[in-house]
Every structure is written in structure tokens, then in C-alpha cells.
């Protein structure tokens, strides 16, 4: 049991220090434009599936990061979709 707890603790610690969402800030302008277009396409489809899609101006970019993490889990969004929608919301 102690070994299991130790293994879980190490596993969680590794997760904690893993780098942030794969280098989203380092993408080129062309990649960012593509991400924006994908986000603009997914935003009404993914968000509007359950509720009225809320505009990006409602929240600050850093708040959207937290909310999108919550929605990514709740709506079972693939990581790439979540990043695209987040980029779109932060850009508006």
C-alpha cells in the first residue's frame, strides 16, 4: 500500500512539473492564424451544443484559460480543439 501511494505521489509530481500546453506561445504567425480559424469554426459548434456560446469579451484571456480547462473536461474536448477555442476566445 505504501509503495502504491509512493508511486502515485511520484506520478502526480511528474505531472505537475510537465511543461505547459505544448508550446502554444511558440507557434508561428501562420500556425496562430490556422488555430484562430479552427477555433472560430469549433466555438459555435462545441460550446453551442449545450448552451449559448458566450463571446470572448466576457472574460479576460487568463480567465478563459481556467474556464476552458473546466469545459475541456466537461465536454470531453480533444486537447487540440480546446487550444483552438481558447485561442479564438482570447483573441476577441
Amino acid at each position, binding site marked *: 500500500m505504501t509503495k502504491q501511494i509512493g508511486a502515485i505521489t511520484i506520478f*502526480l509530481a511528474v505531472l505537475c512539473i510537465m511543461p505547459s500546453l505544448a508550446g502554444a506561445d511558440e507557434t508561428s504567425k501562420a500556425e496562430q492564424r490556422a488555430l484562430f480559424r479552427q477555433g472560430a469554426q*469549433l466555438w459555435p459548434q462545441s460550446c453551442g451544443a*449545450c*448552451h449559448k456560446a458566450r463571446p470572448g469579451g466576457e472574460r479576460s484571456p487568463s480567465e478563459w484559460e481556467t*474556464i476552458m480547462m473546466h469545459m475541456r473536461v466537461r465536454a470531453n474536448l480533444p486537447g487540440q480543439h480546446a487550444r483552438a477555442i481558447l485561442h479564438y476566445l482570447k483573441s476577441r
Partner: protein
Amino acid sequence: MGTFRTWGANLLALILLISVSPNAGLAGSAHGDEMGELRDEIRRLKQKTGDLERKLDEVEATGKEERGAIEARVEEAAPGKAVEGALSRYWGDSRALVTGYGFAGYQWDDGSDENSFNAAFVPIALFRINDRILFEAEVEFELEDNQVEVGLEYALADIILTDNITLSAGKFLLPFNEFAERLHPAWINKLVSFPSPYEGANRIVPFTELGAQLRGGVDMGKAGLFDYAIYVANGPRFDTGEAEEGEEPSGHAITRSLEDDAEEEPSEDEGVPYGARLAKNFEDLNRGKAYGARVGFLPLPPDGKMGRLRLGASTYNGQANENNWYYAWGIDASYRYDLWELRGEYLHGTLDRRGQDDTREGWYVQGSYELSRVLPAPLDRLEVITRYSGANRLGSDPLRKPRQVAVGFDYWLTPSVALKLEYDHNLPSDASDSNRVLSQVAVGF
């Protein structure tokens, strides 16, 4: 002599003329070439000057950039700053956030003396530890029986393992079909009431469970999108009796707590009786756990040109006590195109009692249309909704087959603030609340 002089003068003049004339032409040509060369030289010099100025600007800009970077590094390396910077990168921005929803409403029942106002405040706290770990909790404050009911709707830690796998542990909304987990908040649910299979004694699966789950979504490109959730949890628990006296099994108001308020302890000696209701299970009754899964498939391309179609299937199986297992399964579908939305669910549950099974089922179909292209402003924010829902109990009380027709109008002040008005007609028509009007102001924040 005079003639000689005249001839000599003429000859001299002729020689001079001959000798001077060609020289004068050559001098003019040489001057022109020189001017051209000078112009070219000036042009070259100007170009060189321009190039030098540009290079100088570049050098200055690079110098500023490098100086800024060096200064930042020096500042970062200062005592205390390094730790602060590392922590900042670790935590990220905006670690804590409060979101959620609230509502206030009024309900009028035909034939009942319980017309009443109601209200609730449901904050959701989000703590983003870093880009991979999120803790979220929803607390519900609701006016119930002349007091404020406080409930912990859910509280769980989410750990994003990969792009397609998230581990969640804690108390979570049950990923069974869509309504409980995704559609029940007042600012999302387009009607005031809940569909029959999610209300009171008709409930087929618990709203929440305590356990752990793996979930996520996979983009399969042209093949569509697949999402899943698989979990293990404490399992179902049933109270001993039928619906409490005076409580109708269906068509009940909907503004009550999601959890059943049954407080009676189950009687393990007698086993679980017919008509048992799902109750809280914060502490497991036995060593048996509940296991369940939900899968969803979205076959249409994400550009939305053909709309958005989602098809889902769910299962929930758990040990209710030492002798009885509960098996439930469900299917759900939703289709959204332009201003139209159509969704429906079917749920089926069986409490295995060795030949005397308690089987229950429920369903609903709901359609809505936004009137933005039909009505002029400001009425263009209206949306009309209609829903037909029902529940059956097989084996125990075959007469209990409540049905409900609901029609509603929503006026959307913003995408998260709605004024709702609903009329319900419950069948059989002799029920105490056969006709009901509900109104609500719902705010998502």
C-alpha cells in the same frame, strides 16, 4: 604686299578656324561624360548611405533587444526573483475563479396550494493549479422548506494526462446520457423543469457519484469525433419506501435539489423493495462498486454546414446491497442545425431481485427554435421550446405511467441570462398538479 597681308590674314583665320572648331566639339562631349559619371557616383553614394543607415538601425534595435534580455536575466537572477519567477511559471495565471449560476422563480400549480417563489445560488469554484491540474467544486444554496439548503453538488480533481485522456476523481456529475452532467444548470436548461426521468421518484440513475473516471475525446478527422467516459464509483443506494406520502411520482418541480432528500436508512433485512428510490451514497454500503461508461460519436464534419449530430450510449451497473445489483443503460441523441435544436434520451434501469425485478424506464424528446429570423427586435431574442417526457415502472405499479407535455418561451437578454416561462400539462389529468405554470430568471455568471 597688301594683297599678301590680306591673304595671310585670311589663311591665319582659316587655320585658326580649322584648328579650333574640332577642339570645341571634343571639349563639349568630355564635359557631358563627366557629368554623367558624377551623377552615377552621387547615386551610388546615396545608396550606400541608405544601406548604412538601415544597418545602423538594425544594430541599434538588436542592441536594445539584447540589452533588454540581459537586464531581464539579471533581474530574474536577483535573490528572490528566481524563485518567484519559477513559481509563477509553475502556477500560471489566474489560478482561482468563481463562476456558476443562480435563479429566481415562481411556480403556480392548478389544484395545489403550493404556489411559491423559489431561488438558488450555485457558485462553481475553479482552481487551476497548472495547465494540467484543475480542482473544481460546485456548492448549491437553495431555499427549501423554510430554510437554506446547502449541498456540495460536485467536487473533483481533474488531471489532464494527455490530449485525449483526463483522470477525474471525487464527487462528480454522473456521465450518463447528457442531461445530468451537461444540461441541468438553470441557464443551460431551456425549460424551468427537468424531464420526467430526472425528477423525484422517477429518477433512474443518480445525479452524482463518488469515485474516479477516465474521460476524453479523440478527433478522428473525416471519420468524426469520438468521446468517452469510464468510471468506478461507490454505487447505487436505495431508500426503503415508495415516494413519500403526498408526493407525486412525476411532474414535480424541478427547482429542488438534485439529490433526493430521502433520509431513511435502507433496511438490509428486508432487501430493497419495489419502487425504491435512489438516495445519497456518500459512504458505500458494501464492497461492491458501480461501474459505468458513456461513449459519444459525432459523425458530421466540425464546420457545422450539415449541423452538429451527437449520438451517445451509457451504462451504469452497481451493487445496491449484498444481494441486489442495479443495471441501467441509456441512449441519447442531439442534433443542432442553424436555429433548430432537437434532443432526446432514453433511460432504462432494473433492480435485480431474483425474479421480482423492479424495472423502470424514462424518456424525453425536446425541440426548440430561436425566433431571431421570424420576429423583429426586441422580440427576436425569443426561443420557443417544447418537450414530451414520460416514465414507466414495470412490475411494481403498472398504473404509474406519468406523462408530461411542456411548452416554454425563453427570452435571452444575453447568452447567459434568460427569462423563462413554461406551461406543463401532466397526465393522468387528475393529478394534483395536472396544470402548472413556471417562470424563472436564470443567470449564468
